Every structure is written in C-alpha cells, then in structure tokens.
C-alpha cells in the first residue's frame, strides 16, 4: 500500500507550507533532525565540494516561503476541469509514458478523476501508447486518449501516429507543453515548443492549442467529433502547462459542451443507382473491400449485397469485411477474379490502382493492367473527400468510370436497395448460376491451400503453415480474436486456413507499414477484448517486437490477457528480398544479402527476455511436435487473465 504524504505518521517536523517551499528538496530521500547544525553545515560544505547531495537542516530551510503553494479551498486546478471534459467523451483508458509537461493532467486523472473512465495505462514508450490506441480502436470501435510530451514524447509517438493516420484510425492525443518562456524550468527549454503539433500536422486530421479553458473545452469536443467522423484520423490538442496547473475558481461557470457525432456521408442517390445498374448488368461483377467495415454492420451489409448479386468478393484485409470461408470470398484468387471481371466495385479501397494493375519491381520497373481493358471501374470511398499534401498515402491515381465520394458502409444500404429494386424479373436466376460457379472455385482454392500447407509439414524450423494449423487446432472452439496482422507468411496463413466470421476476429494492418506496430497494437486490442472475455492471440514477428518490447510489461502490469506466438524467423526478411534484388541487378552475388537484415549471432531468446517483463513464456520451440502442448499451457495462463508468449523458431515463409 502506498504511504500518503498527509498520514500523521509520515508528517515532516516542518510546517507543510515551509516544506513545499523548499524547492531544492524535491529529491530529498530522508529528513534528519538537526542534532548538530554546525556539524551538518560542515558536512554539507564537504558534500558540495564532493558533488554529493547535502543533508537537510532546519536552519537552512527556515527561510519563509515566497508564495502560497497549496490550492485554496474555493479553487481547483485547470486540469480538473479538463478531466470533466475528457470524462464527457467517454474514454475507457488513457495511455501515457509519464512526462512533466502534463503532470497537472496526470494528477487530475488519477486523483480527481478517480483513475476511472479513463483509467491510466502505464506505457514504456510513446509509440506503444499510440499503437495501443490504434489496436484498441480496431477491436472496440472507440478511440483511446494518449498523453505525451509535446516535444520528446511526440517525437517518439510520431511513427505510430503516422500508422494510425494512414489507416484512418482515430487517436486522441493530449500533448503537454510550456509556452511561457519566462516561467520554464531547465528541462522545459528542451521540452518547450512554439507549435508542438506542427511536427505531425501532415498526418493528423486536426490540431489546436487552446489558450483558455473554455477554448480547451470547445476544442476537446470538436477534436473528438472530427476524429470520429469518417474518414477518421488522429487529432492533437496541445495543453499549456500553466493552463493545467493554475488554480481556477471552483464556482460554476465553465460548461462542458455537448458532443454530437455527425452521421457519415452517404453517396448521391443518382450515382448509387448508376452503380447498381452496372452491377446488375455485369456478367462477372467483383466487389473489392478494404477499409469498408467501420462497424460490425459493415460486414453484414457486404454479405447481403454479395449474396443478392452472387458476386465475388475480394477482402483486401484492412478491416474484417467478409467471412473467410464464405463461398463468394475470392480473396485468395484475387488476381484471377479481377482479370475475369467486367465490373469492379471498390469499397473504401486504399489502392485501387494496384487492384487492377501490377508493377514488376525489377531494375526496369514495368506495369501491366490485370483487369480487362473494357472492365468498368466504380469506387465508393471517403478517400475522395479527404486528401493531404506531402505524404504520398493517396497512391497512384486510377482512372475510373464512376466515383462516388462517400462513406462505403453508410452507402451500402442505399446500394443494396437500388440493386434489389432495379434487378429485372428473372435476374436472380442468372445470379444464382454465377454463384454456383464461384462456389466451386472458392472450394478448389481452399483445398489447394490445405495441400500447400501440407508441404514441409514436419520440417524444423517450423513451417509457417504448420504454425498456423497448430494454433487453429487450439482456438477453433474458443471465442477468439486474432489481434495481429502482419506482412509475413505467418500473418497470411490464418486467412487461408481459419474460419473468420466475426468482426473482431481480424483487425487489419498497420496502415503506414511502420514496423513496431504489431506488439503494441496487439496489446491495445487485447485490452479491448478483455471485457468481452475473448481469447486474444497475436502471431508476433520478431523484428517488430524488438522495436519496443516493453509493451508486454504493460500487458503484465495491467493484467491484459494476450497470447503472443512468435513468428521468429530471425531476420527482417522483407528487406533481405530487396537487397537480394539489388545484389543480382548489380551482378555482385547474393550470398551477402542478409548482412544488415538478419537478427542472429546471438539469436534472441524471446522467452527469456519476455519472462523478465513478468510474462509467462514457453520456448524457444523448434520442433513442430512440441508446439501443440506449449500452446495449450500458454492458453491456460491467458485464460487466467495474464499475458503469455510462446517463442517458435519458424521458417522464413
């Protein structure tokens, strides 16, 4: 139990006001009665000469305080009011690595706010804080708040903010900053900045620096509203240190503005009818969904549209858009389906150009269109409503035949209604014939995936297919949620072998391709899943974990149940491939291509490392036969409400 400073037993012998006035005492570890003042002073002189900490004396600290340091009975702090506003926005958690520039708000959250709604989550890196918020949103559909220094904290956080922005995920950032140069302490000069949000303005949706509490309240509610209106994205509020810490009058006067989230934009009705007509008349319509399903309703609507039309669906996987084993899911034969299509409907597709074209990444890059030249292309996306300069996340421009600037999920009901209304009598019989053919094709693709997984079945290191088959055997009867996704084969096999049917079973990608997202986003998603009693599991790549492994301490500290299974292939293998291309293009041989990308010599012992963070561990496992029992033991730990990690040494692919 923590000792409180106002406990009688712990009270200092000096009056509290005098004690607080002694600014040089900030780090004093002990209070010693003045037994011999001269002796103590002599000792202090010696201490100063030696550069060590002087001993406190009553005489030295007897000077009267210059100012009152305790808030008055009729006052409260600015950050208490900030907490009132923050509570009105219904955040479940607020993630932070501590920082003095937001100490006022930090204290108000844990004391005035009771450390509930939001509860403070202790993070060991600001990138972890933001990526946790990213993962949390994707599992729960609610944003988390994050506190950070306006300078050094934001610099740490920037990579994760960029990922969230590219992924159009809202994160609510509160940055501490001391703007008044005349009042800064020493460190605050490094931590003070004129325009804190400038550094991330290219990849946040909105920011503000309030100069009064009323200004804060309006901007805080506005920021939430902007972040949560599709297309969603991170927002930033910069909170002046003085605004947080200065006392304000307790009497009422500062209201909390009402929050109203705008409804997302639906497509123009004439354009939606035109799209419906094209789909109905198509011989081989294909629906491509990427960031479509904002809510669980998104998947249900897409199923309804696809089943009515009996159209193939390609789920590009930025969200959980379509069940993996649905007969109309043709994601695993996407290129073939695109090549056959005469109408392609893109729903919140982030890279439509790469959907209908392919680029050959050799010394001389060449481009080939996959889609038929006559294929009609239709897009429904908020990407046409929001674009920023500088960072090139808007990708190549694809010429299309019909572009509907609207939210995909919000537009689906109108599109479904139009398709049903405009389908001529007997049209559904034709659709059904198409559906039978598509079902046969997807059945063959699934069978081929199982056959492909059977190769190198008993190999050591463990094949990524075997890894995923072993995991599936352990979780298939649980209420599971795969909270990782990754640009690795370990991340790709589940979509081929597992039965994804619920909105929280697949959470998409990092967005901006920034490595280091996987581990913290998994912990954030597991935090969201905890209250639902879901079994959260992550296929954790080794290179990703090493960016900020401390987030697993956060999981242990806050009892966040998460099963992390290492896809430990001991290298950044995506980069190995790129260097290989350069080696061969320059005719220099490929045998040194792994230099700079391998994580070997020494091999990292993840079980040992993560065990030191307070997490149950198994491994390293190299034989596939050992995998099943290890997973069972680890799952038992996770079911008790704790994190666990199983280190599996895997093949590259």
């Amino acid at each position, binding site marked *: 139990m923590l000792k409180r400073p106002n406990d009688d037993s712990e009270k200092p012998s000096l009056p509290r006001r005098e004690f607080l006035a002694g600014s040089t005492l900030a780090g004093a570890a002990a209070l010693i009665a003045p037994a011999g003042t001269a002796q103590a002073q002599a000792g202090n002189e010696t201490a100063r000469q030696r550069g060590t900490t002087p001993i406190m004396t009553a005489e030295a600290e007897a000077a009267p305080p210059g100012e009152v340091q305790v808030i008055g009975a009729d006052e409260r702090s600015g950050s208490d009011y900030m907490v009132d506003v923050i509570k009105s926005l219904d955040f479940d958690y607020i993630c932070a690595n501590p920082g003095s520039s937001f100490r006022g708000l930090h204290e108000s959250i844990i004391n005035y706010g009771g450390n509930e709604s939001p509860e403070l989550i202790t993070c060991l890196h600001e990138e972890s804080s933001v990526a946790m918020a990213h993962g949390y949103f994707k599992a729960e559909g609610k944003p988390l708040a994050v506190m950070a220094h306006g300078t050094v904290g934001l610099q740490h956080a920037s990579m994760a903010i960029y990922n969230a922005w590219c992924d159009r995920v809202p994160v609510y950032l509160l940055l501490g900053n001391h703007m008044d140069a005349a009042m800064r302490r020493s460190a605050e000069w490094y931590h003070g900045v004129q325009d804190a949000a400038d550094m991330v303005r290219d990849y946040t949706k909105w920011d503000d620096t309030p100069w009064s509490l009323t200004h804060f309240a309006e901007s805080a509610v506005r920021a939430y509203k902007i972040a949560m209106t599709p297309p969603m994205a991170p927002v930033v509020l910069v909170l002046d240190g003085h605004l947080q810490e200065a006392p304000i009058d307790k009497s009422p006067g500062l209201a909390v503005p009402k929050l109203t989230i705008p409804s997302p934009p639906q497509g123009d009705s004439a354009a939606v009818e035109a799209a419906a007509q094209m789909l109905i008349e198509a011989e081989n319509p294909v629906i491509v969904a990427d960031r479509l399903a904002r809510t669980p309703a998104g998947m249900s609507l897409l199923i309804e549209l696809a089943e009515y039309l009996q159209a193939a669906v390609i789920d590009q996987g930025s969200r959980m858009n379509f069940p993996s084993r649905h007969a109309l899911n043709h994601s695993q034969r996407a290129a073939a389906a695109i090549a056959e299509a005469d109408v392609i409907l893109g729903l919140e597709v982030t890279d439509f150009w790469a959907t209908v074209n392919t680029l050959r990444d050799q010394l001389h890059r060449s481009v080939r269109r996959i889609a038929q030249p006559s294929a009609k292309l239709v897009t429904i996306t908020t990407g046409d409503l929001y674009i920023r300069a500088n960072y090139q996340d808007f990708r190549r421009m694809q010429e299309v035949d019909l572009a509907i600037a609207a939210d995909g999920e919000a537009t689906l009901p109108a599109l479904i209604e139009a398709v049903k209304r405009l389908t001529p009598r007997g049209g559904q019989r034709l659709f059904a014939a198409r559906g039978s053919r598509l079902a046969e094709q997807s059945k063959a693709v699934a069978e081929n995936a199982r056959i492909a997984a059977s190769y*190198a079945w008993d190999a050591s290191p463990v094949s990524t297919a075997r890894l995923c088959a072993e995991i599936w055997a352990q979780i298939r009867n649980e209420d599971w949620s795969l909270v990782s996704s990754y640009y690795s084969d370990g991340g790709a096999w589940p979509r081929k072998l597992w039965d994804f049917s619920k909105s929280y079973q697949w959470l998409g990608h990092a967005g901006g391709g920034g490595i280091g997202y996987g581990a913290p986003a998994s912990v954030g998603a597991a935090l969201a899943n905890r209250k639902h009693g879901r079994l959260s599991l992550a296929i954790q790549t080794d290179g990703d974990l090493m960016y900020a492994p401390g987030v697993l301490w956060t999981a242990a500290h806050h009892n966040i149940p998460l099963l992390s299974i290492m896809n430990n292939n001991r290298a950044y293998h995506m980069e*190995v491939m790129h260097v290989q291309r350069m*080696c061969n293009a320059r005719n220099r041989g*490929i045998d040194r291509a*792994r230099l700079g990308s391998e994580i070997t010599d020494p091999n990292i012992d993840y079980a040992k490392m993560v065990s030191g963070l307070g997490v149950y561990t198994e491994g390293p496992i190299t034989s596939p036969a050992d995998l099943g029992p290890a997973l069972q033991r680890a799952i038992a730990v996770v079911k008790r409400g704790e994190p666990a990690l199983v280190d599996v040494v895997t093949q*590259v692919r």
Partner: protein
Amino acid sequence: MGTFCLLRTKGTAPFILFAAMALLSARSLRAQEVDQGLASFMQAGCASCHGAQGRGTALGPQLAASGESAAAFIAFVRQPVRTMPAYAQQAISDQDLERMYRSLQAQTAAAVPTGRAEVGEQLFAADGCYSCHANEAQGGMHGPRLGPGPISFARFSWYVRQPTRTMPPYSHVVLSDQEIADIYAFVAAQPEPPPLSAIPLLAP
C-alpha cells in the same frame, strides 16, 4: 488443342500427356514430319530468339526437349507473357504448332549438368532462394513451391536467368549452370507430403 486443354484442366493431364508424348516420340516420327515442324519454326521467326534448333539463346529459352506439355506450349504461343509476340490462329494453326512442338521435342537437349542435391541444399540457402520459396522449397506468400515435381530443368534454368516477375535474375556471374543444376536436384529431391487425410489439423 481443345483436347489438350481439357485434359490439363482435369488434373490428370501430365500422365495422359506423357503417355501421348511417348507414343509420338521422336523415333516414331517420320523424318518428313520433323522437317515440316522445324520449317514452320524457322518460317515463323522463332529461331531468331530460340536458336536454330530451339536450344535457346540470350533472347529466348530452350524449347528443345523442354518437357513442357504441348498444351502449355501452344497456350504460351497464343498468349505469351513477356516480350514474345503473340501468334494468332491465322498466323499459325494449332496443327502446325503441334507438329512444331513434336519436332522440337525430338531435338537433343543442350547438355544438362548432373545436379548434386546436397550441394544444392547449401546453395538454396546461401543464394537466398529460401527467403521466398521457404527452406524446403515448399513456397509461400512471395514465391511458389518449387518441388517436389519441379518444372522441366530447361524452363527452371531459363527462369532463374530471366525471371518474368519480381524474382531477382541470377546471371552466369553469380550462379553457374552447374549450380542451377545442383539447386534443381535439391528441389526435385524434396519428399511428397503426407496425404491430407493423414493430417487431421488440416481437415476443412
């Protein structure tokens, strides 16, 4: 051609085609037919890239004794994937292409080095093949399975030298013909997996 395509899609094509090809082996062909096929080959301009007897040049792969099926050969001629021009029915009939195919198969292949699987295993790792095709050549997200049952050595070797997709090209400077043969022997030596029925974890 239609028959060949139909057989191919049924999955039993390799066996039936090999049997058919055996019946139509070079020894059973009349010399006149071989000459006709090669004449078509020269007349259509194929030799300018594939060499006078289809043994390959820097511009086009070896076709002689390639082991590819007639259906695959004809399909590729109709819809080539790289720089080769497409040949329509009006330019050359399926019958002529089949005759050309048989003539090419009757040619002696260029000398194929004898591969050493144990050396190939080391090269497969050292030269980075594993990074896309996985340790046992079983393939993955970034590269297809190579073995067991690889494509013909001629096609394999050609692809290593001039890949059509994103695989880095391996020139003679970085990988000798002997080394390709060693790697080929390694991927060909990979064991067949157990049947799916023997792997309960892969049940649907």
